[in-house]
């Protein structure tokens, strides 16, 4: 009989532990696939909000998605929480890489002490998860994401689906924790057939047009469970204004007793945080610490999102939005704190701490920096102190930061959304030349450049800028002032911003146009024998050259 021996307090505590364990598990996994190094600070005095005595940040969107997937339930027998990690290339080809499963089995441990042993073992399990998330193949892939591909995540609850991982996938067990109501197990099934998807491949070869990578999986579409990109830049320190976010945040004040275990004192209190005041969205103050101009570079990432991933679609992933627009807060969009486009005003907090925090959190792979906004009320915020730890600042003080969600420039409006039900072909949106979909997508076919074929090209053309560009000025996207950081006006007649604006719409490369490409392919093939003959003549030279490399 389940739970008959468990006191009601213990049962409540256990349910709470499992719930927060599930949420933290998702955070650890997604954060490990962001492509950045994670760093959190140790704190000798408990802050009361660090579940399992570990400093694991909560990216609000991720928590939101996890809670949505769980829908108030807890992992139980037959009902597992799964985090699916997949890769999507710039052509829109997609492949599942890993499924992380949090499962519950029936094996109960009645004797175990909930508020003590179970709690500590869950903490240990989270540490193991931190370690294991760095050793599966997807970690290295995710560290190199950005240009050729992005990493997406999807959370679902129910039965584990491993069929998308291809043959011969491997499983690694992270760990188990026995509880009076069942044994929690955490494991990861990962694809090993990554041979042609190795990071090397992505570094050396440019995307090949028109070739569909053969690892499509007929992924069923569960009823809800959208895919999300694993490169939240905004996330780490900012609380978002979610429609559904509770005002209060449950904190876990752990208090252990060294007297006999039956006297364990465990209190869970609710701390009520002040609702953050709304932030003015049309103030576009440039943060004090100069941020690199981010949205142009980051917007190129948006090209990876196929057209059909309209906002609000319950079935597929969401576009990555880094460019900020104004208003039109949509619940599922990432908040893009690009410099332009409505970054909330910078707080009066010790700026260097915040800045340092941001720099650490967002490894500037492409010069992208984001600022965190904190509300004017400084209640409940710790000072970010530069202790001798020095290396990373704490996010705890930014608990109350807010972000206003904005519609990004490249978001497909709901009108253009294509519902999966209408399409017979699975992965129709991934198929090349799906004209119907692409026609609707401003990203692929911006009004000004109708000859654009590839999404990549599309994004380069459709910049909504206030400058001289005649790019696609999206309604919701207004860039008031384009001021790249660290660029001076006085040295060169043309500053970096102007330069960028002038050259941001290059003409399309002829080799990327399909027709010409097809033609030249035939020509190339014909000319091959000639070329080979020439190379054969020079074989000695080549050999000598190779020798020098040994």
């Amino acid at each position, binding site marked *: 009989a389940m739970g008959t021996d468990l006191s009601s307090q213990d049962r409540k505590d256990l349910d709470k532990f499992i719930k927060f364990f599930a949420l933290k598990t998702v955070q650890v996994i997604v954060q490990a696939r962001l492509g950045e190094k994670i760093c959190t600070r140790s704190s000798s005095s408990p802050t009361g909000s660090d579940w399992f005595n570990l400093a694991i940040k909560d990216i609000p969107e991720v928590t939101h998605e996890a809670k949505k997937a769980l829908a108030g339930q807890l992992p139980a027998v037959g009902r597992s929480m799964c985090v699916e990690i997949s890769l999507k290339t710039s052509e829109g080809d997609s492949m599942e890489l890993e499924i992380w499963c949090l499962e519950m089995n029936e094996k109960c441990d009645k004797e175990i002490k909930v508020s003590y042993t179970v709690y500590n073992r869950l903490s240990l399990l989270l540490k193991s998860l931190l370690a294991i998330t*760095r050793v599966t193949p997807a970690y290295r892939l995710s560290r190199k994401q950005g240009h050729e591909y992005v990493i997406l995540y999807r959370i679902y609850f129910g039965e584990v689906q491993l069929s998308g991982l291809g043959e011969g996938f491997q499983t690694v067990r992270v760990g188990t924790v026995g509880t009076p109501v069942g044994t929690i197990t955490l494991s990861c099934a990962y694809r090993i057939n990554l041979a042609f998807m190795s990071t090397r491949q992505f570094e050396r070869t440019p995307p090949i047009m028109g070739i569909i990578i053969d690892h499509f999986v007929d992924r069923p579409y569960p009823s809800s469970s959208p895919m999300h990109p694993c490169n939240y830049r905004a996330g780490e320190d900012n609380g978002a204004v979610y429609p559904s976010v509770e005002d209060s945040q449950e904190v876990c004040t752990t208090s252990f007793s060294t007297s006999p275990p039956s006297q364990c004192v465990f209190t869970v209190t609710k701390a009520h945080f002040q609702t953050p005041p709304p932030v003015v969205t049309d103030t576009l103050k440039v943060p004090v610490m100069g941020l690199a101009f981010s949205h142009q570079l980051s917007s190129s990432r948006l090209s990876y999102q196929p057209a059909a991933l309209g906002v609000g679609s319950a079935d597929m992933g969401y576009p990555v939005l880094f460019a900020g627009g104004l208003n039109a807060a949509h619940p599922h969009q990432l908040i893009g704190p690009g410099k332009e486009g409505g970054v909330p005003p910078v707080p009066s907090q010790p700026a260097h701490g915040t800045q340092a925090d941001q720099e650490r959190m967002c490894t500037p792979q492409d010069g992208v920096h984001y600022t965190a906004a904190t509300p004017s009320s400084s209640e409940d915020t710790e000072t970010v102190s530069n202790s001798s730890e020095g*290396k990373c600042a704490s996010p705890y003080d930014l608990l109350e930061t807010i972000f206003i969600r904005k519609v990004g420039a490249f978001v497909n409006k709901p009108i253009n959304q294509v519902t999966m039900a209408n399409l017979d072909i699975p992965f129709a949106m991934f198929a090349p030349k799906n004209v119907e979909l692409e026609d609707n997508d401003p990203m692929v076919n911006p009004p000004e450049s109708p000859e654009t074929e590839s999404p990549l090209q599309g994004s380069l053309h459709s910049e909504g800028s206030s400058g001289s560009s005649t790019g696609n000025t999206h309604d919701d996207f207004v860039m008031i002032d384009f001021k790249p950081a660290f660029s001076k006006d006085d040295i060169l007649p043309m500053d970096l911003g102007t330069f960028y604006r002038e050259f941001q719409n290059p003409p399309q490369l002829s080799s990327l146009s399909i027709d010409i490409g097809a033609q030249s392919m035939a020509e190339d093939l014909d000319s091959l024998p000639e070329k080979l003959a020439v190379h054969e003549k020079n074989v000695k030279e080549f050999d000598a050259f190779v020798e020098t490399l040994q």
Partner: protein
Amino acid sequence: PLSTRCCAPSSAAPAMNCRAEVLEVSVEGRQVEEAMLAVLHTILLHRSTGKFHYKKEGTYSIGTVGTQDVDCDFIDFAYVRVSSEELDRALRKAVGEFKDALRGSGSDGMGQISLEFYQKKKSRWPFSDECIPWELWTIKVNVVNLANEQERQICREKVGEKLCEKIINIVEVMNRHEYLPKMPTQSEVDNVFDTSLKDVQPYLYKISYQITDSLGTSVTTTMRRLIKDTLAL
């Protein structure tokens, strides 16, 4: 022979109830440090808690442990360690000495570094306190010499893959939930944990190493403890 230091070197057979795990790696010379740090940090990540703060009535609260990613320069590998500069310094010091010893004369490039977790048991005067190990990790290292750049590149990847396996092995052991010292009262905490660091609290541990010379005999070099520990008589 009982030394005047608190605990005798544990190169002898581990005491009863002390579980022992052995890991082996073959690495190139310049990879030794990073490989050792990766393994030691991963173990200590699991064997460190937040700082305890004792309150009235025998209750205590626990501080928060932060973590951070570390990328290796000479190995295609990354690992997570506890965010504690003191702990990192202590491990680097130990590993640095080990590496130097490995390079020293008489060494065939083979050696092992041991991480031992122990508990102190107070004895009455005139006997010194006993140190009772409860977990012993031994990492056997074999240093290889490589001929050219191509081999080095392959080694980077191979060692990275091997270390991934080691991390999985370590996590497996940790997951067995075998013996851990009982949570101590305030008066006993220094017998179980190292409370000298200001931000985290690992279980009491010590690191020692041995270098095997080319004749295959073991040249014992026991390193001093890295943390303040003993009652000297």
